[in-house]
């Protein structure tokens, strides 16, 4: 557990995250309006979403199933009876003056997320609860000098609020938690995890304390919209709190905003006066009752999740926990790897996927889904290596050529004549030529300077433009140098 050093000694940071994950669905949680991102303002709004007089909510069954699916993916208890409450407060983009949420009786209870630590160990982070609620609209403050513009397209879209226990201790852990959560949501297909488009938003509850002391007063940093920012915000907030306390001040419980530009957090003005949300059961809705059979059905249909996949990769492909962890991080890369590894040396496949492939993807900065080299193509290249058609070294050049031309390995090897030379006659000829040209070196070698062996190998490879089979070169060189 890593601590932060202050003037008065070291401090422990205590972090809990509240993640708002937008549910993947066609229509909104309580209305039939569409959820697509990026539509013209107020074009995906019904009179229900705009809270017109007399309008009533009717819940979307698929959104409920998505919440259950997510709960099961987090190995959490599913509450067969849950209740929707109204959270009352006034804001420009909250048309009804209340948000329909779940307060006392959420649809999902305690669960957990397992983090893979860099040192290969794992750490379990508790999930307190997951509940369904409506998203609010969007306020644009920068469009006009005197007015805020309000777009209700997002108003009423289903969100899953996923609350963690205060189990996180460093910004790195917070980052790892978000990555893992996002990965699970994507595996489940319940949230696309796109933080830029706001389909995954994070509130960070941060407090500091001397190791072993009582929990300190926490501040909530609202709506941080990238994993990097979350880590920065936590870092800054922790140091700010330590400074305040060490300067003899005390932390006020408050809601703060992260200013990504300046990398600092500041109090949120619109949340200045204390809130009193006056939660009470929404009388327009009735208790949400789930059929245990339906829940079981969803459980049976769950896809293989990252942890299970990782275990299987370690077991079946004999990969290191680290490699397996990297490969299952995104479902797409795990699938890509399995396609490549099928019927081939799994370690070799892993090296190529995590090495040259990921390297290329990073350079081009594209997702594995749109990789210029398909799993099939990479597999064929590996086959050429294993059947000695091309040397491991030249294979790297072949791969580079595949990336830029999109041609198959075989074609490139053919076109560029990179076929490995295994014909002993040709190799012996090359060796003889080298030995003739290096008479002194040969003599030195024979007089015991066998360090020179590598030099001769290099010369022979050079003479064959690297195409000679390294194994044969060694074998034949030894013979001939021995004389």
């Amino acid at each position, binding site marked *: 557990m890593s601590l932060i050093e202050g003037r008065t000694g070291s401090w422990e940071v205590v972090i809990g995250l509240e993640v708002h994950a937008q549910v993947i669905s066609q229509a909104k949680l309580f209305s039939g309006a569409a959820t697509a991102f990026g539509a013209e303002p107020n074009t995906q*709004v019904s009179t229900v979403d705009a809270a017109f007089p007399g309008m009533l909510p009717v819940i979307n*069954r698929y959104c409920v199933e998505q919440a259950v699916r997510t709960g099961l993916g987090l190995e959490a208890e599913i509450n067969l009876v849950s209740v929707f409450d109204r959270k009352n407060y006034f804001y420009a983009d909250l048309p009804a003056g209340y948000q329909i949420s779940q307060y006392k009786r959420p649809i999902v209870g305690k669960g957990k997320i397992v983090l893979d630590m860099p040192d290969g160990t794992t750490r379990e982070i508790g999930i307190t609860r997951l509940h369904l609620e409506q998203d609010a609209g969007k306020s644009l403050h920068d469009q006009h000098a005197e007015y805020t513009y309000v777009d209700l397209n997002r108003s009423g879209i289903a969100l899953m609020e996923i609350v963690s226990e205060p189990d996180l201790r460093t910004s790195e852990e917070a980052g790892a938690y978000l990555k893992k959560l996002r990965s699970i949501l994507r595996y489940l297909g319940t949230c696309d995890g796109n933080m830029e488009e706001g389909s995954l938003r994070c509130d960070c509850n941060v407090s500091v304390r001397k190791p072993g002391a009582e929990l300190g007063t926490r501040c909530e940093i609202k709506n941080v919209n990238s994993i990097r920012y979350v880590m920065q915000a936590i870092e800054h907030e922790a140091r700010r709190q330590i400074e305040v306390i060490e300067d003899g001040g005390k932390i006020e419980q408050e809601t703060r905003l992260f200013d990504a530009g300046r990398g600092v957090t500041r109090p949120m003005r619109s949340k200045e006066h204390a809130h009193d949300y006056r939660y009470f059961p929404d009388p327009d809705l009735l208790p949400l009752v789930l059929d245990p059979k339906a829940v079981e059905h969803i459980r049976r249909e769950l896809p293989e999740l990252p942890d299970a996949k990782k275990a299987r990769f370690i077991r079946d492909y004999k990969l290191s926990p680290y490699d397996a962890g990297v490969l299952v991080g995104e479902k797409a890369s795990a699938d890509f790897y399995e396609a490549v590894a099928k019927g081939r040396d799994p370690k070799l496949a892993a090296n190529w996927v995590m090495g040259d492939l990921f390297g290329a993807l990073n350079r081009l900065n594209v997702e594995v889904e749109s990789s210029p080299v398909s799993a099939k193509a990479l597999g064929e290249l590996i086959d050429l290596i294993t059947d000695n058609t091309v040397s491991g070294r030249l294979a790297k050049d072949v791969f580079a050529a595949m990336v830029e031309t999109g041609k198959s390995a075989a074609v490139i090897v053919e076109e560029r004549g990179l076929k490995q030379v295994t014909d002993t006659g040709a190799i012996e000829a090359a060796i003889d030529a080298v030995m003739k040209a290096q008479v002194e070196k040969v003599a030195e070698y024979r007089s015991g300077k066998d360090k020179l062996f590598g030099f001769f190998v290099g010369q022979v490879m050079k003479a064959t433009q690297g195409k000679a089979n390294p194994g044969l070169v060694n074998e034949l060189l030894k013979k001939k140098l021995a004389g």
Partner: protein
Amino acid sequence: MALDKATVARIATLARIKVPESDLEHLAKELSGILTWIEQLREVDTAGVEPMASVAEMTLPMREDHVTDGNCRDKILSNAPQQAHGFFLVPKVVE
């Protein structure tokens, strides 16, 4: 229970209803009167009684995930006191 002026002012702010200082006194008296009358409920022992949120003896009906509404901006904005470029306008908010 008697409400004082401060409490009435706090509730009025929560409810976003402007109440002139001069009305607080009178309003506090009026609301206190109603609350005192309401508090006869205390006579009843309700220990262990389930609270009733709705009389409807049914569970929540669900609809299918189909887009059946929206795409009617003119309707949505037709009653707006102030609008521009397809947005509702409100006095500028500082976050």
